[in-house]
């Protein structure tokens, strides 16, 4: 059978945010290198920022914040479980990256003196930099890719990584989503930039593609890194976001907060001091949502007309531009009604929480030659700017790695086994429909893994997931597009099992709602002040183990540790 073989030096998988930056920086570091960017969709409009972004959530701008302050803030926001070295590498590179993006033509809000107009949303520091014209960011990236001569292959779906006999990364298998042709890309080094696992939980609407994350981000990278033997970390620290009810757009207290908008209960009262997304914030949100003063709303109807017009301009033009027509359909006008909110389905995403592939401060995973960056890589609360920074760090390090190592050999048997696995659904055109398996799996994820987490439920969930994994052997595809969905489904299956096993392993509660275990309701620092790592062992079993938290480089004072635990506004008891 014919296999298309491509050989490159640096292979970047995923053309959203971190991926283009990694490819550009590898090529800048050494223009002689052959750098290939693989994208499932089209680089022009792919990934989490396909329609742009309305701001930076974590800009460390001199005069407003220092890297040390930022590291402290994220350490506290993530309940102490961080590798401060990776957060510091982000923080130090944050401002140079803003300046570089600015020089490329990305527009950030500036004040009348030309300084960046940074705003306060976090509990302690000041890190939010609006981008009212952020809708063009993908175009800017695309121009840079062309300028540097990065090769781009759209519509190629990476499925499994290959290693050589020494255990170094040697390339990937990929399938063309338009033709179902099987490809092998040989590479000295691979940078995974495949985004979040956003198709894990099922949105309350039951609509498979109504997810918070771009649904192309199905967890492919989590699955590929796992099967390559890389360590993953903090998988039990789920991503759960406050969203507009029935619409996948964030409530956007980040955007509206500096203008006076806030998260309110049904009485229109504030109940949290800070709208920055953290596990504790989500737990307070959940309690209010389920409590007698619920549900929860975004309150803007006390603001002046010109302020609301400005908010509409930002929220309806960027990131989620269909938001305006959703509100129009429901008869919601920011001037008159508060906007009903809800919590999102669960996902894995280090950009928002901490669940990702373990990396060091250069983006290196635990597999030699394999890097990860962006939402996929475990650098807590990293967001879009973190994806750019870690794309850069990984791209530069990967370019240096290429000078040291030769291309590894891929065993023919590995290639054949993967070809057989990935193309099998095409031989069963009348097989089980992939969309039904996916619906059932993701509904079970909601039933058994959505916090509050319950031990016995998660154990039952694991049994159900295993049954669906059995059914997967009967899944069918009648064309290349349906085959693509089966490939994504196999990644979702892996992610569901990882989410359950990591959650069961950590026998305490931490990160507010993200890992709220009803049968272990307290945080237990004595036994669990550690990272929970997850890995495929040499027998092919999924195992979890603890990894010590590296000594802090920015120490915390005792009175700073619980800043995020005191989010709920204290009210005098009414007589």
């Amino acid at each position, binding site marked *: 059978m014919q296999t298309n073989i491509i050989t490159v030096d640096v292979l970047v998988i995923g053309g959203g945010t971190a991926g283009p930056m990694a490819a550009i920086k590898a090529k800048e570091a050494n223009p002689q290198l052959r750098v290939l960017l693989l994208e499932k*969709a*089209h680089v022009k409009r792919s990934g989490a920022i396909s329609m742009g972004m309305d701001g930076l959530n974590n800009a460390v701008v001199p005069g407003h914040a220092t890297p040390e302050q930022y590291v402290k803030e994220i350490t506290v926001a993530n309940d102490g479980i961080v590798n401060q070295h990776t957060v510091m590498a982000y923080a130090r590179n944050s401002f140079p990256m803003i300046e570089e993006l600015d020089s490329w033509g990305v527009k950030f809000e500036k004040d009348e003196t030309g300084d960046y107009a940074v705003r306060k949303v976090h509990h302690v520091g000041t890190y939010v930099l609006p981008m009212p014209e952020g809708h063009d960011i993908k175009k800017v990236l695309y121009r840079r890719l062309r300028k540097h001569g990065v090769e781009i292959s759209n*519509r190629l779906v990476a499925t499994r990584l290959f290693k050589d006999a020494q255990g170094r990364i040697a390339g990937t298998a990929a399938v063309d989503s338009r033709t179902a042709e099987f490809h092998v890309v040989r590479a000295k080094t691979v940078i995974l930039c495949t985004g979040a696992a956003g198709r894990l939980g099922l949105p309350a609407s*039951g609509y*498979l*593609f109504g997810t918070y994350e771009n649904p192309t981000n199905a967890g492919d990278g989590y699955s590929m890194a796992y099967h390559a033997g890389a360590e993953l970390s903090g998988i039990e620290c789920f991503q759960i976001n406050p969203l507009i009810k029935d619409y*996948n757009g964030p409530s956007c207290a980040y955007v509206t907060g500096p203008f006076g908008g806030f998260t309110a209960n049904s009485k229109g009262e504030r109940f949290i001091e800070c709208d920055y997304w953290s596990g504790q914030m989500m737990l307070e949100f959940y309690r209010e949502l389920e409590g007698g003063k619920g549900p929860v709303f975004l309150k803007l109807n006390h603001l002046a007309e010109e302020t609301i017009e400005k908010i509409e301009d930002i929220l309806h033009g960027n990131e989620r*531009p269909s938001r305006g027509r959703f509100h129009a359909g429901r008869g919601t006008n920011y001037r008159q009604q508060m906007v009903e909110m809800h919590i999102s389905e669960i996902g894995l995403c280090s950009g928002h929480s901490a669940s990702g592939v373990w990396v060091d401060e250069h983006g290196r995973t635990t597999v030699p030659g394999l890097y990860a960056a962006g939402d996929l890589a475990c650098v807590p609360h990293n967001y879009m700017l973190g994806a750019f920074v870690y794309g850069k760090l990984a791209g530069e390090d990967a370019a240096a790695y290429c000078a040291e190592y030769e291309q590894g050999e891929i065993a023919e048997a590995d290639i054949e086994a993967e070809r057989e696995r990935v193309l099998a659904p095409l031989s069963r055109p*009348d097989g089980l429909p992939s969309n039904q398996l996916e619906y059932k799996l993701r509904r079970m994820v909601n039933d058994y893994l959505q916090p509050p987490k319950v031990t016995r439920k998660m154990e039952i969930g694991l049994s159900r997931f295993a049954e669906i994994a059995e059914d997967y052997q009967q899944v069918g595809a009648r064309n290349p*597009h349906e085959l693509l969905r089966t490939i994504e489904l196999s990644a979702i299956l892996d992610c569901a099992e990882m989410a359950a096993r990591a959650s069961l392993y950590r026998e305490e509660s931490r990160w507010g709602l993200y890992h709220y275990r009803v049968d272990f309701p307290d945080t237990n620092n004595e036994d669990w002040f550690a990272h929970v790592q997850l890995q495929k062992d040499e027998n092919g079993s999924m195992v979890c183990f603890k990894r010590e938290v590296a000594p802090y480089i920015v120490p915390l004072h005792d009175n700073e540790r619980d800043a995020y635990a005191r989010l709920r506004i204290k009210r005098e008891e009414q007589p």
Partner: protein
Amino acid sequence: MTLAYTPSSLPVIIDADKCIADKGCTICVEVCPLDILEIDAASGKAAIKYDECWYCLPCEQDCPVGAIRVEIPYLLR
């Protein structure tokens, strides 16, 4: 296995009179992150083929002739 086909209202509305896919344009097909649009072989016009729309709007915004309108999927409306 026997398969049934259940109807579903699709949120991407394409004005065939305006669409210039028959003149070689494939922009909407290329920019859709979910790859759910195709040029229909019979009509030569763009069409939505899969009920997998994320209502993210690149197709609508990048269409050079304004032939596309994306609605919020009925289940979410």
